[in-house]
């Protein structure tokens, strides 16, 4: 696990442009989603001195008044968020293909070529993979967490044991999280298999990915756990610094701090992918795609 984790961070250092691409992808999508919201907010809040308090802090009263004045504003923000999330799902597939190709390919083509090659070649396969993983994960989550939630509700009504009821609710949430985590790790492992073997059979890759994670649980969960811990530490540092900003600090200061955190988060995402590639390689070092074949398929040239 530590070897894979170190390999992951080495990958970040080697392929810094991946972090840059990830950040720019996210920033561009977010800006595109928020720009119309900003225009609507300027029109809505700009002329109203009562809204100035929002520049300093959240005010429930002002937001409630705003909702009454502009009923379409919050649904508009919600729609922007939903669209961004949907786009994120699609672009996430694109990025994952490109990033894994960059991290695994041994040819000397330019970065953009390798990234684009992976992004387009694996998009369809990753999409099919997600179409299998998500419903299966949802079914498992419902089977595991559903009865626990129902039990918590019954305990709340019948038992009077408050800690037990809350604990059961928490256990249901943990079960949900665990299913999600397993699904994500298995999906990542399958993606690595797809890229490293260039196979087209998604279900085979999924089985292999599941096998990888199952046989080496400690390493896969450990690598993810360490990554998550570092992410938590980064988030705590961000919160502390944001809190330390003086009340009258310009919004640019907060924005810069936020982008620093987003870049750190991007680096950790790439580090996790790098670690997962290393884990897969450690479990099956011999199975590597033929670079010449890769080239042929990508370019369509003999």
């Amino acid at each position, binding site marked *: 696990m530590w070897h894979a984790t170190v390999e992951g961070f080495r990958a970040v250092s080697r392929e810094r442009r991946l972090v840059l691409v990830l950040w720019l992808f*996210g920033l561009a999508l977010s800006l595109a989603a928020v720009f119309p919201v900003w225009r609507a907010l300027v029109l809505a809040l700009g002329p109203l*001195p009562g809204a*100035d308090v929002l520049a300093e802090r959240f005010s429930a009263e002002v937001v409630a008044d705003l909702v009454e004045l502009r009923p379409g504003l919050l649904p508009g923000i919600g729609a922007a968020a939903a669209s*961004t999330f949907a786009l994120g799902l699609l672009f996430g597939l694109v990025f994952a293909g490109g990033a894994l190709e960059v991290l695994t390919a041994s040819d000397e083509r330019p970065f953009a070529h390798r990234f684009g090659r992976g992004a387009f070649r694996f998009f369809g396969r990753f999409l099919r993979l997600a179409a299998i993983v998500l419903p299966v994960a949802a079914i498992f989550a419902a089977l595991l967490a559903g009865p626990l939630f129902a039990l918590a509700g019954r305990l709340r009504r019948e038992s*009077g044991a408050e800690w037990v009821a809350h604990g059961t609710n928490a256990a249901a949430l943990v079960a949900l999280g665990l299913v999600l985590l397993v699904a994500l790790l298995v999906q990542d492992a399958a993606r690595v298999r797809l890229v490293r073997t260039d196979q087209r059979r998604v279900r085979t890759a999924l089985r292999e990915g599941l096998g990888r994670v199952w046989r080496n649980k400690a390493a896969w969960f450990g690598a993810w756990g360490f990554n998550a811990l570092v992410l938590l530490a980064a988030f705590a540092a961000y919160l502390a610094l944001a809190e330390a900003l003086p009340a009258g600090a310009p919004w640019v200061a907060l*924005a810069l701090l*936020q982008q620093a955190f*987003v870049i750190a988060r991007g680096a950790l995402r790439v580090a996790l992918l790098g670690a997962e590639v290393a884990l897969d390689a450690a479990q099956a070092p011999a199975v590597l795609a033929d670079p010449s074949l890769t080239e042929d398929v990508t370019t369509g040239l003999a």
Partner: protein
Amino acid sequence: MKHGIGAVLLALLAAAGAADPLPARAPEIASYDIEVRLTPGTQRLSGRQRVTWRNTTPEAVGELWFHLYLNAFRNSQSTFVRESGGQLRGDRMPDDGWGWTEVTSIRTAEGVDLAQGATFEHPDDDNAEDRTVWRVPLPEPVPPGGTIELEMTFEAQLPRVFARTGYFRDYFLVGQWFPKLGVYEPAGTRGRASGGWNCHQFHANSEFYADFGRYRVAITLPQRFVVGATGKRVDKRDNPDGTAVHVFEQADVHDFAWTASPRFVEVKARFSGATDVTAAEYAEAAALLGRSLEEVRLSDVDVTILMQPEHMRQAERHVAAAKAGIKWFGLWYGRYPYETLTVVDPAYGARGSGGMEYPTFITAGTTVLFNRWPLDRLRLPEEVTVHEFGHQYWQGMVASNEFEESWLDEGFNSYATGKAMRQAFGPWTLEVLGLRVSSAELPRLGNSVERMFDRVRTPAWRYSSSNNYGFNSYARTDLTLRTLEGLLGERTMARVMRTYHERFRFRHPSSEDFYAVVDEVAGRDMRGFFAQAVERPGVLDDEIAAITSARVEPPRGVFGEGPARRTISAREAREQAREKDAAGGRLWRSTVLVRRRGEVVLPATLRLEFEGGDAQVMALSEAEPPAGSVDVERAGLMPGGAGGEPWQGRFKRVEVVTPRRLLAARVDPEGRHELDVNRLNDARRVEPDPRAATTWSARLVFWMQQLLALAGL
């Protein structure tokens, strides 16, 4: 001079010797001596009670009306269950958790059986299935000043806890449990044309109304139970059969409730009028109210908190909240006259019994989640404790009719609770993960979005929904009283509330009584305010609909006649403008359009803010402006907030010509109109300021990026 000093001394002596305006005792009208036995396995009560009713009215009374509240839970046909649909106060009625009560005998002290002619009544809705009101004809009327004594026995089945009362496993909250007399109101009382019993059915959206008296209750139940109740425990003895008898007594109250559970942890504390209130606080309260120090002096109170074991980390918070209530309500409205206060922390699973008030006995409500970060800064346990304590004043002592005028207790208490919470615990009621909501903001949230305005003075069960009842009786009344405070000033409002409490402690006031006190203390007629804010469903919403400010253009065109006729061209006008600009002498013409989006008309001022920090404040008035007032003349405004009939129209266009540019305009700049449904539109500036929008957009970008990361990007 000598004469003057003597007069002052005499006045001081007179003040010192003057009777305390707080009445010491309540009239004893309906008194109860009850023996009750609880059988935990069956959740049954067996009771015997001696009821003494004194006719303090000038009318002979030939029948008695009783509340049999527990029959509200008897079946799905009761008015209560029909109206609530089995859901109330965030709680759901458990399946088959029925409750009922039955009077098994009723006789006069002379042994005359009264049960034969008794009938169930349904004065509010003609629901023949409802058995919550019981009418008992008497063999002969009770004359004015006369007394009747009744001996009654009853059996009751407690419901599974729902809507304030019942059992949950081995936890019992026993409220509305004994056959209880209504209130006989003679003709003229609160607008009655003829005398009669005020004894409403038990509704989903209404509470209680009863006469004062003395209670002595002996409760028998297994020895393992910890018991708390209204009043003071005067005796406790163990029986050989494993039961114990707990005896409680209390005078000057109009209800009695009790609780029992073996799991309660009893926390004792004492509020001290000497040490829990500083000399400065006493002096400040006396000055605010215009009362002597002796009049605001508080008594000691024994506080008992019955905590659930898992909530013990919050015991001190409950004690602090109870003491805060005793202190601030005592200082502002009059000392708490009872020796005890019991606060019950309901069992988990029995939330329906939380947040309820009975004389000297209240139920709070919390959760283990509030034990620790990040929810330990939610002040909800404090809020509910202070609120329920506040009902000792607004409903407990000032015993208004909760069925018919719920705003007089719930709304008054919400207003008072907010003030006490801010005084004792600071402005924030909810603080979690950096988000804060103040107690002042909370009532405004529903006010803005929902616009559920109905007539505040509506019988509680006639509101269109629970939400409507809740908003109008609690939040809207709170905002109405805060608006009244804005109009009268803090000091006058404090004296209004104090006077109202003093005058109606241990009585049954109506809305008119409060209006009269306001007029008297404020020294002006405020009926117009109450007519709009309480008696009608109108909305208050004044806004600045539009605002402009532009330089005054020099005149162009043809001027003068005959040989003096002269044409000023556009180019000449522009040059004139440039010259004036260079000399700094060009004026600004600014217009403000004030729009009334609601129906409520309150005296309001308009503040115009100009470049350089200048401001002009004017009253929005119907009156003609004084002659010679150049700038405000066209606007029809009275300068400087000088009274006059408030402006009644829908739109008012204000135009001013000034040397400085107008930056912003604010209606109600002092923020006195708390009732305004949207305070954000009270002000508008000429040039938009994008700071708030940009700050939140930057945050949104960040959170969108986090969302994308969740999506896998």
